[in-house]
């Protein structure tokens, strides 16, 4: 009996310790980011553009706006497509074999290395268009968003009770009214939460942008031209030789981390609200 008790305490102790190691890393990363990087975030980071290599000062205005443009267009492409795909799976395809195949494949697609999506888009968009572009970057991110949105929308819509649909049909409503005015309305908070989650997932993506939207020193927001983004700029600056670049990379890291966490927490609040209603 004593031996079993000792074993029990040791096992529980080890689990507790490892949990604290995990929490320690979270605090460590956040604290060290803030401690080493926060004083590099100032007003000029948001209002100025890069200066010539090695010079002090400069900012990330182009990169921040570029990131917003690429993520914005990606959301416009990926979210509606994902929502429609999710609607099909839950409202039309239901439990047919093919729908289940699509469910599994789209689930698996959320875990495919994002750099592969980047290469794919390089081959089908960048090469035919003859150069890196905003559009290519947005398509790459949209392809990453789509399966996330499809799977989550499908799950959320399937939770809407069938009685609601039946009641609407009984009143003579056509299917699209049932979907958009009854089912979607019931699930609207969940849908908002999915949208925020999908944005938070792609906001920090770097690898797929390396060969699609690439990087640029000339401030241009044209769809067919390469563009600077916060993530790729951060990578280039961190790997570069100048201290002033490293400082801007720290600022970029802080801005990026907190915007991703913001979207993620917002998504959680919506999803919490959905269940508490």
């Amino acid at each position, binding site marked *: 009996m004593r031996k079993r008790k000792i074993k029990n305490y040791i096992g529980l102790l080890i689990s507790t310790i490892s949990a604290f190691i995990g929490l320690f890393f979270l605090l460590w990363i956040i604290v060290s980011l803030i401690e080493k990087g926060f004083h590099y975030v100032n007003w000029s980071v948001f209002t100025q553009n890069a200066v010539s290599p090695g010079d002090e000062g400069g900012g990330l205005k182009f990169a921040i706006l570029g990131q917003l443009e690429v993520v914005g267009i990606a959301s416009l492409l990926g979210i509606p497509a994902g929502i429609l795909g*999710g609607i*099909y799976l839950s409202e039309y395809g239901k439990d047919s074999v093919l729908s289940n195949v699509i469910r599994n494949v789209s689930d698996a697609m959320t*875990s495919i290395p994002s750099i592969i999506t980047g290469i794919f888009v390089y081959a089908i968009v960048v090469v035919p268009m003859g150069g890196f572009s905003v559009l290519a970057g947005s398509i790459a991110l949209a392809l990453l968003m789509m399966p996330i949105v499809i799977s989550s929308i499908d799950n959320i819509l399937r939770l809407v009770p069938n009685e609601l649909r039946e009641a609407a049909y009984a009143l003579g409503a056509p299917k699209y009214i049932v979907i958009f005015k009854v089912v979607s309305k019931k699930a609207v908070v969940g849908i908002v939460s999915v949208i925020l989650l999908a944005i938070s997932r792609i*906001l920090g993506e770097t*690898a797929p942008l390396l060969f699609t939207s690439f990087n640029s020193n000339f401030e241009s927001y044209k769809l067919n031209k390469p563009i600077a983004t916060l993530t790729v700029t951060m*990578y280039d600056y961190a790997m570069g030789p100048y201290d002033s670049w490293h400082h801007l990379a720290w600022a970029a890291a802080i801005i990026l981390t907190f915007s991703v966490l913001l979207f993620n927490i917002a998504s959680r609040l919506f999803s919490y609200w959905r269940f508490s209603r």
Partner: protein
Amino acid sequence: MKKKFVMIDFFLKHISMFFAYFVLLVIFGLFLVLYINSKDAINHFGFFSFLTSNIWSPAFDKFGGLIALIGTFLTTVISAIIAIPIALGIAIFLVEICPNFLKTPIGIAIELLAAIPSVIYGFWGLFYLGPLIEKYVQPLFNATLAKLPIVGQYFYGYSSSVSLFTASAVLAIMIIPFTAALTRDALKITPDLLKESAYALGATKWETISKVMFRYSKGAIIGAVLISLGRAIGETMAVTFVIGNQDSLPTSLMSATTTVTATIANEFTEASSHLYLSSMYLLALILFLLSFLLIIGSKMFFLRKVRD
């Protein structure tokens, strides 16, 4: 009026069907595009000699994937060895030990850690963890583990802060929260009735965890671990910052090397010849097949229970 409804319904059904099937199109297109573009490398070097050749030489237009594949294999395995026990500990703590009022905040904290973009982990590894490893861990390894016979050489070495070990450590820290969240969900599937029966038979808490819960959710835990491995294999940014990007086989934990993802990230836009580019498509194809099979396999064989 009726006709308008029918038309809109028809339209909605088919457009939504298009986007659902689009997923299949993308996955098929991915495979096809990677295969077509890597064909030249396959024809020129042969698939199996590409896998086993350790020459990666843009200057002589000769390419083999062995170094990158071994780099990917080693970073994945070493990070898994570090991460999985800690992640399991966290999962056990969250499901069975943690007081109820702390369960949600700690669970959310772990999930937020999993949401931090991988480029941040890489950046943090380059500027923060790497220098610490160079300053404290390298001397420690050289003074202790490197003195061991036979295996000692694998811990020996002085390098800058970027190395196989730094990359694996960063990767481990990155997948811990992800694996912990997945294994927690896997442990949760054990029915309360089974746990209560174990306690009623006089089992201690640890016996209930290790002999009942682990046995019940064994498949789901293996599935969760496989998905984490898939994540580690394909991770790009967390590794690229800190692996060193050197096209040579690692001689110890402290040497710089490269991985499939780091090679692609660094060299893809600079490829000077057609064969060079094609070889990188081939690396991407191998990576795609590995991770896709891993994910589909774990979903089909192990994760059924969790979803139901």
